């Protein structure tokens, strides 16, 4: 304890001394560094109590105008603070095992025993000492330039203290140089919480352009500010920053993001319309344009269909009532909807599938896939057939599926297509093995039989006899093939 007192005395002396001798800012900083070690050793022992000291400002600055306080500010009473600390430590045995915390606690609590008194004593000592200064007025600077001794940490120590969750006033970092050193120290300290705290301070005390200019060459800090602005929703500031940085694409995206918060569709549509002119890449501009057009269409379709449904005159809507509104759905979902409810409409109608296909340049593959699913769901097998049929210039028809017939089969099967329908498409599956698998799985006997015949696989064909019904046409077919002498079986 006496050692501590002695250190303390020494410290006051040194700090007082410095105030007289060093006019130059830099020299003062270097002096600060020199005495830092001594200060540090003191601080470790004194711990929290200097928090109280800081609030007793003697330099004439407003008390705690913005002091970053990590301790319980509102409660204000040190004793309750201690009580909480100790109970927390006791409450969790693992933390009590932390030697550092335990020891510093006990030490500081010793100190706290007479903390108010001692700090006041030293304070009044210091105050009466300052009286000495009055004898040399020509050496004095304006009062406000005096640094509050208890908050007189170097940038590095300030960052360090903040990392440990201790109170630290940033107010005294007033020159740009100081602020930037502080910021760089915070970044070097690897603690995002502190970096953000410093940035909040800089943001408050620097003009935007200056802050932006400095952040441009400090990417880590810049990331923190952008993240902070996003989190707190300071959109305008964020956009200014991004514009300054020439990150035009991010400007556009940040603005576009706002549409997610607009619930009203009409307002959302209007907003999206405004987004089209934003500086997106060419590719993204077309996506935004599509987004706007899609919502515009959906609003029209929704109004129409709701009316149709209410009127109850459309059989389709009566039979298959809509489960949800089409507003804000993806394009493919909209296409599905339109293939379901508006399949036969002329291309001129906004709600017709062909119109959607043209407007949004939906690839053939995607279109067929979606239309197929919709028509199969309605069990409109004729439409399915038409969808997959193409005519060549000689008028011959041919089945074609841009998605592969195994997918066609899968979609139809999922919609419980009858075997007759199914097997027509199973037959068209190109890969023999897949065809056989699908045919067997879905009991498309004819396809299986014909495939074995084409493979000239007598053994498999004979074995398949047990899979078909006795006396059925399929069994008959197998028999007739097996007895066909023209086939040259491979086995």
């Amino acid at each position: 304890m006496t050692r501590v007192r002695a250190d303390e005395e020494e410290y006051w002396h040194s700090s007082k001394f410095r105030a007289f001798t060093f006019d130059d800012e830099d020299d003062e900083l270097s002096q600060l560094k020199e005495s830092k070690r001594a200060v540090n050793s003191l601080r470790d022992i004194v711990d929290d109590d200097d928090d109280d000291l800081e609030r007793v400002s003697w330099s004439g600055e407003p008390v705690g105008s913005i002091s970053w306080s990590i301790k319980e500010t509102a409660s204000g009473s040190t004793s309750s603070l201690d009580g909480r600390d100790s109970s927390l430590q006791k409450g969790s045995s693992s933390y009590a095992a932390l030697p550092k915390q335990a020891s510093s606690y006990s030490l500081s609590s010793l100190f706290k025993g007479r903390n108010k008194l001692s700090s006041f004593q030293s304070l009044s000592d210091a105050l009466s000492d300052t009286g000495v200064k009055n004898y040399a007025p020509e050496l004095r600077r304006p009062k406000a330039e005096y640094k509050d001794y208890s908050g007189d940490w170097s940038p590095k120590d300030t960052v360090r203290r903040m990392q440990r969750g201790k109170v630290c006033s940033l107010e005294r970092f007033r020159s740009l140089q100081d602020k930037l050193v502080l910021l760089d120290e915070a970044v070097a300290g690897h603690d995002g919480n502190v970096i953000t705290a410093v940035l909040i301070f800089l943001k408050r005390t620097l003009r935007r352009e200056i802050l932006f200019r400095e952040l441009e060459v400090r990417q880590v800090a810049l990331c923190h500010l952008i993240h902070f602005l996003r989190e707190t929703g300071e959109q305008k500031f964020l956009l200014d920053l991004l514009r300054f940085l020439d990150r035009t694409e991010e400007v556009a995206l940040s603005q576009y993001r706002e549409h997610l918060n607009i619930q009203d569709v009409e307002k959302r549509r209007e907003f999206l319309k405004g987004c089209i002119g934003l500086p997106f890449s060419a590719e993204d501009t077309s996506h935004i344009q599509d987004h706007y057009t899609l919502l515009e269409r959906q609003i029209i379709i929704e109004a129409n269909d709701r009316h149709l449904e209410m009127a109850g005159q459309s059989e389709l809507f009566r039979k298959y009532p809509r489960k949800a509104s089409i507003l804000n759905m993806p394009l493919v979902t909209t296409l599905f909807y339109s293939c379901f409810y508006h399949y036969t409409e002329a291309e001129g109608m906004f709600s017709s599938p062909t119109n959607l296909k043209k407007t949004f340049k939906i690839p053939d593959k995607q279109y067929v896939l979606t239309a197929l699913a919709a028509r199969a769901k309605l069990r409109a097998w004729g439409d399915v057939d038409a969808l997959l049929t193409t005519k060549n210039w000689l008028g011959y028809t041919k089945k074609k599926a841009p998605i592969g017939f195994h997918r066609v089969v899968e979609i139809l099967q999922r919609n419980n297509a009858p075997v007759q329908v199914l097997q027509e498409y199973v037959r068209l599956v190109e890969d023999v093995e897949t065809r056989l698998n699908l045919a067997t799985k879905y009991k498309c006997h004819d396809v299986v039989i014909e495939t074995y015949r084409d493979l000239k696989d007598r053994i498999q064909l004979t074995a398949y006899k047990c899979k078909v019904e006795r006396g059925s046409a399929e069994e008959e077919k197998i028999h007739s093939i097996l007895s066909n002498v023209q086939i040259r079986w491979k086995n």
Partner: protein
Amino acid sequence: MRFIAGECGWPPAGAGAPLEGRGASAAPGITPVPGVSGPGGAVAGAGAAVQGLCGVSADIVNADKMSGRSRKYKIIFSPQKFYACEMVLEEEGVFGDVTCDEWSFYLLPLDEDIISMELPEFFRDYFLEGDHRWINPVARALQLLNSLYGPFGKSYGIGRCAKMSYELWRDLEEESDTEGQGRKPEIGHVFLMDRDTDYVTALCSQVVYEGLVDDTFRIKCGSVDFGPDVTSSDKSIKVLLNSQDKVFSQIRNEHFSSVFGFLSQKSRNLQAQYDRRRGMDIKQMKDFVSQELKGLKQEHRLLSLHIGACESIMKKKTKQDFQETIKAEHSLLEGFDIRESTSFIEEHIDRQVSPVESLRLMCLLSITENGLVPKDYRSLKTQYLQSYGPEHLLTFHNLKRIGLLTEQAAGETLTAVESKVSKLVTDRAAGKITDAFNSLARKSNFRAISKKLGLIPRLDGEYDLKMPRDMAYVFGGAYVPLSCKIIEQVLERRGWQGLEEVVRLLNGNEFCVSDSAVEDNPAWECQRVILAVFLGGCTFSEIAALRFLGKERGCKFIFLTTAITNSARMMEAMIEAKA
């Protein structure tokens, strides 16, 4: 006194705490029930919902004030209070009305060998936003472990975040008293790794049982909700999944294909034990009932649960073309038939199978191929937006920034920006900028790394998944997880010597530091204990692989991770659109 709660219940360490964007609605714990007065409420903690939690809290307080109610409020932050939160409270004019506490809760032991920090937001905050706010908690977690288990002999690491965490931790150690230093060390090695060192592994479909359960049902804080389809009753059951579960502990690390066999063998044994009661006399029966029956019943319950889970997994996976997906993944890993895999992904998107799954496959393609060919990128992106919604434009932007889904030309544009900026500033600052860019979107070089480290085992004959010969078994013998391979190699070499090329391909930032006081005591038991620290999350597949490695090499891995992750969680962290 009124408590404003973040996440409720156990574990409170800000588990899944909402952050910006996800906002207040995503915070199930915030229960500002008007009219609830008097003492009560929940113990709370939320990572740091800067706008979310603090904003909402402020709203509650202000609403109370308006209606003339005077209350006391308390916010408990865990593990740490952020200055930004205080700023929000101050701006909202409630600073004095609310008292704030911190609950320095860092470690949640999920099992004998897994410690989670329950910070799922770490991944997005650090790797996407470049925010260093969680480095301090990581350093403190290390400090805590250090004080509990004595000094670590040797520290290895790779990645920028690993390096920073290490430095901050050392910083904290230097300041603290040296009491812990004299302790006999219990952990010999610590290995820190950034998640972005290896995205590939995290993006793969998991096929070890625990991983599959996580992918299918989502394990939360070591427990899982098995729904009616698993329990074959009408209610869900919450099951704790750890080594205490005698059935689970035996199958968790197994490849899914061997799980069935094991379970059926187990049920036969169980049946046999039940059957023994036939022909018992009264005395024997009494012993049986008092000593064995309870255990058997317990085992029976567990068995039927896990069998139910397996069935449910099978059903779901068959529906999703799991076989085909795995096949496509394997070709991506090996670098064969890229065209075919690309059209598989395309079809996956067109069929609207799942927004998260489609995204995952695209990312896997991008990462293994060092970015997509611009033509493919454009067409896949367009189709994705058409299938899953145009607002995913924002998601794609995120994925590009983090480097998970890029265009092959993207590297050049980055360099262009870099050189433009570096013309303006000094070399020192330019170096910083390059670093920053690297951290956000770095090249994956997967193919080259894979070749160098032999990640794709050459197969002669069938890979026997029941008798695994290397860590590749966790991916059906097709791929050795990169993250685990790095750890294996470094531990084997006791450093990075000989791995220079790999390190270069991984974009450097490796380190290896030994504590002179502890090292060179090979006799010590602690040399066999390795703490593997994953910054940004680790998967159950990686845990299984390292457990396997530990068994092979006669050492033990302990896992410290910011959160348990999997491909879906990673993708969801990137998705910007509404839920």
